[in-house]
């Protein structure tokens, strides 16, 4: 992570703490009334839950019983000394809950690095004796929990060292999402009536156009916001009727890739694209597209964004890979061989 960050973060961060967080911290989720082991989300992972479970599950940030915080603290102390501190008090660990839909971020907990020990028993984010925080009560759009180690004071600027208040030096994120959330792609059934309106011939199976109400991709949050992707009504019904059949799975993948390729094509020649930063697109449709091919780290996301800008064809090829396109083709051909 620390290495990956260097291209976008021109200062030393807490790479030892970052590695420790990545290796040891999980978010455990126990839906109300469910016995047995809780569900566990690894750093930068997503768990999809039904709306009721999203707002009632017990949520804890946890490390294993045998994990010690010592190595993380020691690695932090060396940076703290470089920054002029005697100990790790320049750093705070903050747990935030965020929602994109309702646009707020609330602080759930603030503690010292040493307090990471509390995670051993499970740091309960939803203690039953307190009202559940509003950031963890979002059944339709879900939320993100982020644990970040930040610089808690403003320092004198020195080259290669963090100095601004709030600079994050290590962090992990966990997402709780509703099952309906995602890229937001729902092909529109191409009925005979629409075929007439859109002037499409009989053998046309799919058709894409920019959503007339959302001509600017920078404002789009979902694929549907930007692309209207029509699929022949009868074909779409057959795909929906047998979604797991290899032929249906292949057809669905091709429909999805068709929409993504249309989107990438529409970005070609956009003179504003080169000016955009990851932060500009992080929360919108382009951010979601990047996450198809990159994991949740600034380095990877940044590289994926550079690729999208510089070589959209290769980016499209990476999306194909993430959709297991070749395997789906092979499954389909194997089905055909079996039918002979």
């Amino acid at each position, binding site marked *: 992570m620390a290495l990956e960050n260097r291209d976008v973060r021109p200062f030393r961060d807490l790479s030892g703490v970052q590695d420790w967080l990545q290796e040891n911290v999980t978010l455990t989720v126990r839906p109300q009334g469910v016995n047995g082991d809780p569900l566990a989300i690894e750093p930068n992972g997503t768990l999809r839950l039904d709306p*009721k479970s999203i707002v009632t599950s017990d949520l804890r940030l946890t490390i294993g019983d045998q994990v010690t915080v010592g190595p993380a603290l020691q690695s932090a102390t060396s940076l703290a000394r470089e920054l002029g501190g005697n100990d790790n008090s320049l750093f705070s660990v*903050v747990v935030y809950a965020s929602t994109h839909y*309702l646009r707020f971020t609330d602080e759930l907990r603030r503690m010292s690095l040493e307090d990471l020990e509390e995670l051993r028993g499970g740091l309960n984010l939803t203690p039953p004796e307190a009202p559940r925080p509003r950031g963890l009560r979002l059944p339709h759009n879900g939320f993100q929990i982020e644990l970040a180690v930040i610089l808690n004071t403003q320092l004198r600027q020195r080259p290669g060292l963090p100095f601004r208040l709030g*600079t994050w030096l290590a962090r992990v994120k966990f997402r709780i999402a509703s099952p309906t959330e995602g890229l937001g792609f729902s092909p529109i059934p191409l009925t005979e009536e629409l075929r007439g309106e859109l002037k499409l011939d009989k053998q046309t199976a799919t058709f894409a156009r920019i959503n007339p109400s959302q001509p600017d991709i*920078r*404002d789009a949050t979902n694929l549907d916001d930007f692309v209207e992707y029509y699929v022949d009504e009868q074909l779409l019904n057959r795909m929906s009727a047998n979604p797991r059949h290899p032929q249906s799975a292949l057809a669905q993948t091709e429909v999805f890739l068709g929409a993504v390729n249309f989107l990438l094509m529409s970005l070609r020649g956009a003179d504003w694209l080169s000016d955009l*930063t990851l*932060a500009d697109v992080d929360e919108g449709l382009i951010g979601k597209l990047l996450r198809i091919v990159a994991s949740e780290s600034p380095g990877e996301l940044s590289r994926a964004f550079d690729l999208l800008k510089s070589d959209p064809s290769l980016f499209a090829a990476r999306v194909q890979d993430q959709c297991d396109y070749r395997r789906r083709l092979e499954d389909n051909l194997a089905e055909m061989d079996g039918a002979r």
Partner: protein
Amino acid sequence: MKYQTLSLKDSSAFANLVTSDPLRANVTEAASFCAQYAGWSASPNSDSPREVELSALLKLSQEINRRIRDAGGDKASDASREKLEGEISGSLHSAVKDVPIEILDDPRFWRHLSVRYFAEFITWREKDALKKGGISKYFSANESHESIPSRLYLRAQSALNADGSYHLAQAIPRGTDFWRSHILRVRTGRAAGLTKSFVELQRDNRLSTTPLRELAKLVSRMWANIMLFEYPAVEAKGLLADLRAQVEDDDER
């Protein structure tokens, strides 16, 4: 707790209805449409059969429609349309302040509010989109920062002062683009101190479009490395002053 909802299909159908005949964007038509198409939903963590209380919203909607007429109705200037948007955002936030967050998180709830209480305001406020046949996104609530009334709510939420006042929500004349592009569409709107300082900066010493965009871009870039939620208003003011000086230096070169 129970609340009324509208599907995306139905909010689009209403948008099409008012696009073909803008005079149908009125209280009677909206109430009749909702009576026919609105569904009911319940907050997933509450067994209460009580219905969510929206009487303040009904009053607000009547007041807004009166103010549309006071502003000149169809003949109102763009500036007066923007002004009214800023002025009512705090009242809307206040009118739904007791609605549980679980319900506010539901786009279907916002769609119902759009049609039932804000049909006339949306068609009046977004008259250009209405003419081009692209008004459905203002009813759909898919994108909370675009749709009315969710964007009014978010604007007031970001501008809300500790004393409960909303004066910053209407502090910038012709401020819709500022709020949409530089606060609500990006992460800045989630950082209370930063948002308030940014609004005050623009109110007191307005930047024109290009330098404002440059400043907003610098702020956006800072998010890559800095948790700007950590900045109380005073620190945020200092940060914005530094960035603004950087923009002005670049302009002079």
